[in-house]
Structures are given as C-alpha cells and as structure tokens.
C-alpha cells in the first residue's frame, strides 16, 4: 500500500472523505451567510449531497401566481385514514424493539392558523437504522414487528400524534463513513396545493448534525433548528414512552396574502 492509497481526500472506493464534505458544507454556508436575506429552505443546488448534482434544476424557479386549482387542496377523511394507522407499534404481531416514543405537534399555516383535518404521513427506519425497503442494504437487523410507515389526520386544532419507536442512524454511500442522523420522514398537506411539504424531523442533540449534507443543505442555523423536535416531558408517559414535540409551519396561504397585499378578490 502506498501513501496515495491513504489519501485523505478520497478513499480507494472513490468516495470523498468526511473532511472534504465538511469543508464543502462550510464553504457554502459562509457564502450564504454573506447574503442579506437568510435562506429558510434547503438549497437544491448543494453538491456535498452528491445525488443532488444531476438532479437539481439549474434555472431559477419561475415566479407564478397560483391559479384556482393550486389554491385548493385534496381532502382526506376517515375512509382514507384509520386511527390505528397512527400507531406504528401495533402493525405486526408483537412489540417492536426500541425506545417507544410519541411524536406530536401542530400543523400551522404561515399565519399561525391550524391546518385542520389534513393528512400527515410518516416513514422511518427501525431502531437499528434499517428500512423495510428492498434497496436498503445496511447489514442491520430487520425487526419483524416494525414496518415504519404511518398516517394520521390532524384534528380541529391542527394537532397530529404518532406512536412509534425511535429510529436509529444509518450509513449511506454519499461519502466515506457517511451516517444519517436519526430522522423520521414527514409528508404534509395544507389547505392549498402550493403548501405541499416533504421533509424530515430530527432528534435533539444528534452528534451527526454537523456532518450530514442533507441536514446542512439548509445553510441557516435558525432554519435548520426548525427540523429538530423537542423532548417534551409533559407528553412522556409514566413507565411507557418518551414524548417529542414538533410543530410544522407551512407556507402562508394565498387567500390571506391577497387580502393583506391589497388584492381585490376577497374585499
């Protein structure tokens, strides 16, 4: 083995080192820090996440006023989502292995109004960091008692609640020794189709945060913090589970925007 085989920047499998990825993340963050308006959404052009390189639009998003259909949203009801679908611990015959948790919070629009009776979907890895997915090759055990997908409707206060187990971190091939911080994937609808959101919720204090190019694609610290749930002792249950709280804010609805900005549609 020569010294070049131990090259710090690139391992023999062609993957960049964490140090290279971290340096790229920091360079882009510093660049964005100089901008006057902080970005609140992820950059879609973010090379440290290697799979994004060929999959992000290179042209600017085109400003458009929403039309009638985009100002409405699909409606979901009790025929679509059964209450038990919000409990990911009872989908098989036995108890899944892991830390039992409840994740709850509210879905609000950008004006702070609750999004009522709307669909929230989640999917996640098991406690060992393994997905029930044929493409997941991580050699960690599959839990026969855990699938990891759930659905819920928000209530009249916009509140959702899932019973699940805490997912484990898992390795991926973005770079050498790359590990995703533990997360739960979320899919959320608003009252307008323009508010559609797909995101990931993280757990507080994860040491993998600074190393993860997906989380770090949001270059503003305050914005990144919005993806981290809070441990909530009030929703923990005696000898049963730990509670996490995570509120979700969608983009503002345009009905209000039109009113506030002097549009005539609703006057």
């Amino acid at each position, binding site marked *: 083995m020569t010294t070049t085989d131990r090259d710090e920047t690139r391992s023999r499998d062609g993957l960049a080192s964490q140090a290279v990825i971290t340096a790229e993340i920091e360079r882009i963050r510093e660049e964005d820090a100089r901008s006057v308006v902080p970005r609140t959404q992820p950059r879609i052009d973010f090379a440290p996440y290697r799979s994004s390189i060929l999959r992000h639009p290179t042209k600017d998003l085109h400003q458009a006023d929403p039309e009638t259909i985009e100002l409405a949203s699909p409606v979901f009801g009790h025929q679509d989502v059964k209450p038990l679908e919000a409990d990911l611990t009872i989908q098989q015959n036995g108890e899944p292995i892991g830390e039992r948790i409840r994740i709850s919070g509210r879905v*609000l629009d950008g004006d702070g109004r609750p999004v009522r009776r709307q669909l929230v979907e989640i999917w996640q890895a098991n406690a060992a960091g393994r*997905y029930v997915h044929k493409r997941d090759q991580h050699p960690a055990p599959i839990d026969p008692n855990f699938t990891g997908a759930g659905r819920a409707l928000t209530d009249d206060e916009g509140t959702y609640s899932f019973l699940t187990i805490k997912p484990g971190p898992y390795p991926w091939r973005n770079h050498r020794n790359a590990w995703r911080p533990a997360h739960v994937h979320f899919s959320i609808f608003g009252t307008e189709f323009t508010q559609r959101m797909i995101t990931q919720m993280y757990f507080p204090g994860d040491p993998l945060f600074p190393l993860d190019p997906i989380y770090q694609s949001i270059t503003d610290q305050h914005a990144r913090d919005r993806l981290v749930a809070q441990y909530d002792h009030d929703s923990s249950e005696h000898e049963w589970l730990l509670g996490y709280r995570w509120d979700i804010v969608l983009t503002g609805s345009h009905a209000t925007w039109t009113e506030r900005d002097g549009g005539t549609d609703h006057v």
Partner: protein
Amino acid sequence: MSDDATAGALVPTPGQTVGPFFHFGLPYAGGESLVPTSHPGAVRLHGTVTDGHGDPIPDAMLEIWQADEQGNISTEPGSLSRDPYVFTGWGRAATDAAGHYRFTTVNPGATDEGSAPFISVCVVARGLLNRLFTRAYLPEDAASLAADPLLSSLDEERRPTLVGTREEGGALRFDVRLQGENETVFLQFPRHDA
C-alpha cells in the same frame, strides 16, 4: 416559535429530500388511478423523469391535483380508499425502474372562464432537496394557452416544457427534466421562501 413571528407571519419549516426509501411509506395501491380505466373519459397521463445527463430517475414520485372534466374542483375525500365512482382530483405515482410514471385520469376542464386547463404537478426524488411544483397544460386550446399568464411570461423555448403532448389514442405525455437540455420550468409561488 414566537421568535419567528414577524408581522404575524411564521417562518415555514424547511423541506428535505424524500430520500430513496419512500416506496413503503407514500405510494399506495390505486394511487395512480384517479378514475378506473373503464371510465368513458379515462386518459393515460404518463412520462419519464430524467436527470442532467438525460438518464431516467427510478426513485422519483409525482403527485397530480386537478379539476374534473367540467372544471370543478373536487372537495370529496377518498383519494386513499378510492371509490371508483368518486372523483377526488388527486393522485400519486412513483417512477418505475425506467424512470417512467403513469396515471389514469381525465382531461381537466377550465376552472375559470377562458383559462387554459392544466394539471398541477408536484415532483419529489432522491437527490432533490425540496419538492418542486410545475404544471402540465393540455395542448388543445391554442387561444387559452396563448393568453395564459404563466406561459406568456416564459421565453418561447421554455414554454413547451409545460405543455403535454397528445399521443395517438388520446394519452397525454408529460416528461419532467430536472436539469439540462429542455429543463422543465418549475414554479415558485408568492410567500414561498427560497
């Protein structure tokens, strides 16, 4: 969350990529069928999602949201349970190993007098850090297409990326190119932060 409040407006939660493992969480049986294939107005809407090299993307997902043939917007629940007699206007389909997606739906009618009918499209994929919005316009009504505020605000060479192609037999073809030559026009609405 009060520290985010400025003039009553909250800062939206950031999006993140859908990742590679969404198939057991999001797609569902019947998701691609807004109407049964036996519906008299059934139309196949399909296309390929490609990357900056023109290669198909096998781990993307599209959602469509549209009016019915008369231009009415459904307020009916049931998109996940799919009663074939109820049109909900919403569907979801993942791309297959060839990057191809397909829906069975109807041609939407105009939602407003003289407006150009289109299907609202939301695209997610592994490698795509936030969801993208676009529109699939029906190609037929040249006058309404020419008068459409969005289409007329676009350079002539980019406009066709938003207009579906009618195939023999009535299918509507709508390809999504995330990057590169003929890159699809993706939309940003007011109150969407960058």
